[in-house]
């Protein structure tokens, strides 16, 4: 089978503002894909285009066909249903009636440890509980492709763990899952492919390992009497700056930069080495141009 999702130079404007400017990517069968981006980056809009709610202008293919409604696709969008007078059982029965291949409601609720909620009204549930109901609603239609938009927002730790466990189970069943999230750490263990959406474009498309090797930075800081010129050409340098008498070197390869600094070791004091967290990678990616490969020299005192 060909790719489950195929997007080529997709554009989408909302009120004359380019939300999606040039989006291209492919997703293979049975992959778990993490779609990362800041608030307003266009993640939800992209999902709505892929679901067929918004026009794709012939630029997208889902399950080998143009996106349209009534597909072998289910979704868990942001904003949970909080309909008055409706119980969890009601909404799940309603969900099950929409598809011919639906899963048994009780089975899904037991798997997600939600049987205690079955008779509760949606209006009486907390934000995290509502999110779990929405997740159950995405599972019940038993579709080949599942879109999850910020699935863990508001969930407690146990619920999150159960959700990721369930997603892992779905992956083993061969389902393709596209998840949007702000949390890189959560996606690290499960995602086969990471897409980073920035300014309406896919700024990164690859595996988590590729992302790490490309963007995981090491910061080496020290005090020295030597001038900045001595460090501007060292190996794997991303950028260098000086603040309060301390020189900060950001390196793409901490080991190689340290080796390059070894000859100067006697001149360096108060040395500190910090590896950036995944969250920091995301923040720095949001602040900088991902495609900018040039070494940026700045000095601020």
């Amino acid at each position, binding site marked *: 089978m060909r790719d489950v999702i195929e997007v080529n130079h997709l554009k*989408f404007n*909302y009120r004359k503002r380019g*939300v999606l400017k040039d989006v291209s990517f492919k997703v293979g069968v049975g992959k778990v894909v993490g779609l990362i981006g800041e608030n307003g980056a266009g993640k939800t*809009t992209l999902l*709505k285009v892929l*679901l067929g*709610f*918004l026009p794709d202008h012939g630029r997208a293919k889902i399950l080998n066909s143009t996106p349209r*409604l*009534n*597909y072998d*696709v*289910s*979704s868990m*969008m942001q*904003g949970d*249903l*909080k*309909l*008055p*007078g*409706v119980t969890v059982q*009601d909404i799940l*029965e*309603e*969900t099950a*009636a*929409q*598809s011919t291949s639906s899963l048994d409601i009780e089975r899904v609720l037991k798997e997600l440890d939600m049987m205690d909620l079955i008779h509760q*009204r949606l209006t009486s549930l907390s934000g995290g509980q509502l999110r779990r109901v929405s997740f159950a*609603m995405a599972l019940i239609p038993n579709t080949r492709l599942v879109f999850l938009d910020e699935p863990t927002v508001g969930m407690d730790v146990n619920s999150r763990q159960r959700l990721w466990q369930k997603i892992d189970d779905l992956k083993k069943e061969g389902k393709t899952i596209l998840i949007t999230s702000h949390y890189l750490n959560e996606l690290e263990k499960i995602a086969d492919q990471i897409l980073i959406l920035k300014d309406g474009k896919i700024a990164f498309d690859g595996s988590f390992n590729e992302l790490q090797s490309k963007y995981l930075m090491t910061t080496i800081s020290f005090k020295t009497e030597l001038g900045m010129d001595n460090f501007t050409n060292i190996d794997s340098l991303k950028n260098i700056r000086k603040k309060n008498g301390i020189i900060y070197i950001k390196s793409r390869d901490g080991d190689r930069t340290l080796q390059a600094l070894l000859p100067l070791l006697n001149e360096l004091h108060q040395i500190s080495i910090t590896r950036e967290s995944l969250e920091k990678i995301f923040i720095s990616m949001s602040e900088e141009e991902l495609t900018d490969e040039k070494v940026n020299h700045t000095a601020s005192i």
Partner: protein
Amino acid sequence: MKKLTTQLRFDGRRLVLRNTSFIFFSLLMPVMFYILFTKVMVVTNNSAEMKIFSLNYMGSMIVYSILITSLMNIATFLMRDREQGFLMFLKMSDRGLFDYYISMGLWSVTMSMISVVILGGVAVLVNGVSLGLTQWGALGLMVLIGQLPLLLLGMALSFIKRQETLGVVCNLITFPAAIVSGLWWPIGLLPKWLQVIGEKLPTYFLNDVISSITNHAKLKLVDFVGIGIWTIILLAVTLLIIKISQRRGIFAGVQA
């Protein structure tokens, strides 16, 4: 068929059984008004006059109940379903919104019929109102036809963006309309200029038809023409709003 029956069960529970707003504002309140004005605050000792008033006020309260249901209940449910993404959710199924609209339409009609049964029952039990089977049948039929403009108005109003605004607008329409069209007290008590306005409202036409039926009076063509014109106007307005909403991508609550 399974989808439609599930949808009917789903909507029946939330629109009728578990809908305190419907039970209180559409049923209990008109019943309380009816008992209050026909049993407690009696304005005449003439039994013949009182019999007519009990009949007419039953009709008025039925219309008032339908007005409340259309504007306070149906409009709110339609709006909330769209805003919360329930329509988006339903649109993903192979039958789209077809079953949803069928179900909402059937339940709207049922809710009006429940009003007729409850208020009619109270009128019979409390005031000994007596109507023939044909009269009850004609009354039910007229309620079905006469509620159309009110339901269309509720549907049009459901496209108001914020729930708070919808609540205010519905209140601003419901209560003045009820008073001006003579549902709360006889229209003859109002100033002349207000009567002129009141006699042009769909609630007045429906109330007048019901009054003709219950009093064995001749049905007036002007009432049917009035209901017809209001239906056409509100249908056109609703279709226009739907078209604009679809163009803006907000018909099913879908926004970029």
